């Protein structure tokens, strides 16, 4: 049981490495590009990181619990398209949003039911959902993008309050809330516990099934939220949205120091990991570096983060 109480000093140290890396990236790019450290650019980056960031919250929890959810990108598109279709059929936009969220929650519940209740492999189940939902998305909207939403809806993704994008404020609030949950509640103890030693948690009389189910439901819900923010930002719900987003999300989580086998990790780490990848990508874009090199650099960074953990972790 004491396995996860010892994570505290460890996590502290690791976060310093990540913060330093972020700092180096920011300093470096502000020297290389005069546009990097401007208010517009930073707000721009904040605006772009929201979808990945929202999904990274439950993903961090799920990875801490020793599982993984690869279906998030497809859930995102499924929810977005469900919302779009509902709106096209003449429903009120906010009711459509709720339908989108429910669609995501439902997908999460299916994942959770199969993984928690029937003890199926999380990776296999979510790959199945990834493929199936993406197919469903094409079936539902015939592959055509849905647009023409009312202006009130674009408020979420395109407007600014006090110079800060609305969606970025929402993301930060969500991170703070989730971080509180993962630090102060019994729920978090169970999540870390399942990641470290599922059997012990089970024999302590705690329903592992319920915790896992809740985690995948959360993942579905947050993916749906990300989908809705994406549609609001881009003004269009399309079948390809969210493709490969799981890679970005998992990269951010892992760079943020969460252990792929579970048991260790933190949301603050994920947030820093997220900032690292978005600022890196933005900086390279500003310099006009081809995406082909960007992929190489991002991959190398991930290897570095993982290597660093091995060095530092045990």
């Amino acid at each position, binding site marked *: 049981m004491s396995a996860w109480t010892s994570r505290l000093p460890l996590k502290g140290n690791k976060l310093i490495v990540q913060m330093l890396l972020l700092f180096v990236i920011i300093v470096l790019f502000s020297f290389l590009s005069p*546009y990097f450290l401007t208010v517009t650019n930073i707000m721009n980056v904040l605006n772009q990181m929201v979808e990945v960031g929202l999904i990274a919250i439950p993903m961090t929890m799920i990875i801490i619990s020793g599982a993984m959810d690869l279906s998030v990108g497809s859930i995102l598109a499924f929810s977005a398209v469900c919302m779009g279709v509902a709106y096209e059929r003449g429903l009120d936009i906010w009711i459509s949003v709720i339908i989108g969220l429910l669609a995501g929650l439902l997908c999460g519940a299916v994942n959770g039911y199969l993984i928690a209740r029937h003890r199926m492999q999380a990776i296999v189940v979510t790959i199945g959902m990834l493929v199936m939902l993406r197919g469903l998305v094409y079936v539902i909207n015939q592959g055509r993008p849905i647009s023409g939403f009312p202006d009130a809806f674009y408020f979420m993704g395109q407007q600014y309050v006090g110079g800060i994008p609305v969606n970025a404020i929402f993301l930060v609030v969500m991170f703070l809330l989730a971080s509180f949950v993962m630090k102060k509640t019994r729920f978090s103890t169970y999540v870390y516990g399942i990641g470290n030693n599922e059997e012990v948690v089970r024999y302590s009389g705690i329903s592992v099934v319920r915790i896992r189910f809740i985690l995948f439901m959360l993942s579905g819900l947050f993916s749906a939220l990300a989908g809705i923010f994406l549609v609001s930002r881009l003004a269009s719900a399309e079948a390809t949205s969210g493709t490969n987003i799981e890679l970005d999300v998992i990269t951010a989580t892992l760079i943020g120091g969460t252990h792929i086998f579970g048991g260790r990790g933190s949301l603050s780490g994920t947030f820093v990991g997220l900032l690292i990848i978005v600022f890196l990508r933005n900086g390279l874009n500003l*310099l006009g570096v081809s995406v082909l090199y960007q992929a190489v650099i991002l991959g*190398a960074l991930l290897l570095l983060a993982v290597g660093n953990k091995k060095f530092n972790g045990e």
Partner: protein
Amino acid sequence: MKKLTLTLLTGVLALNLAACGSTSGNQPGNGGKPSQGASGSDTRTYFINPKSIGPAYWAAAEKGAKKAAADLKVEVLFNAPTEADSSKQINMIQDMLTRKVSGIGVSPNDAKAVGPVFKKAKGQGVNIVTWDSDAPDTDRQYYVAPATDQEVGELLAKTIGEEIGGKGQVAFMVAGLGSQNQIAKSNAAKAYFAANYPDIEVVTTVASDDDQQKAYANAQNLLQTYPDLRGIIGFAGGEPPAAAEVVEQAVKAGTLEKNQVAITGIAVPSVVKNYIKNGTIKTDIIWDPGKLAYVTVYILDQLAQGKEIKDGMEIPTVGTVKVDGQNVFIGTLQVTNENVDSFDF
């Protein structure tokens, strides 16, 4: 102590990586204008944004854009996501707006989704020109295209209609079902069949999402599903070669008779050269993507200097272009067995 070393190492490595990245990114710019080493603030910079990076079609466009950069003595950044993804593309355009480029040429993956970012660009005084694929109803100033989607779609329908004698099943292969230019072209082809070849039935439309492997699998499925298929139209660069390859293999394997399935479409000549020589593809429709990109840079440069875009204006290395309202047309080319060797792209 260990940790300190590690931290330092991480920082230094990141520095190295970024430094490598930046030099490789600057090279093309420097090559374009050897007189100025670093990008001075007085040079006009344009961001040319295709749908994705990788396909031969966009590689040919990149050559044209770079040539325009050298000819006009401007800097051109040619970049896009590795997959045809609308949100990544828009992120990239936003990043370029903060870099304060003088103009942006976009081939949008989603005509509607680029609306807000184009509006923002207009607010900042950055000129936007769409090329290859349009985004009507946005703040883009011009659309650079080979011909109207209507004309191209009709030409493709006419070609295949003549080849198969105006009767039978035809399948459409498109890059993306959501892409404006693909929808417009395939709709025009359908309308042309309905008006001129009522005996031609369009059995299905399959999409590859610009993925070569998927296009190949789609073509295989078409032959399996529709044994009576007479023709395939490929509406984007990757589709006709995939269809031709699959048909040739089926002919070799004896499951399909030669010339049973006629293929036409839009493809870069170098990619379909062998299929044209083998007779698997009789006619291929193309325009020079390099010239398309060249004209895009040229138009952006004219706009940045406040010059007028006129019908019939002469563009160096491209020739005269037709300007109709906000559309700039450079014209199409027909590739056949006779002229296939004369193309250098």
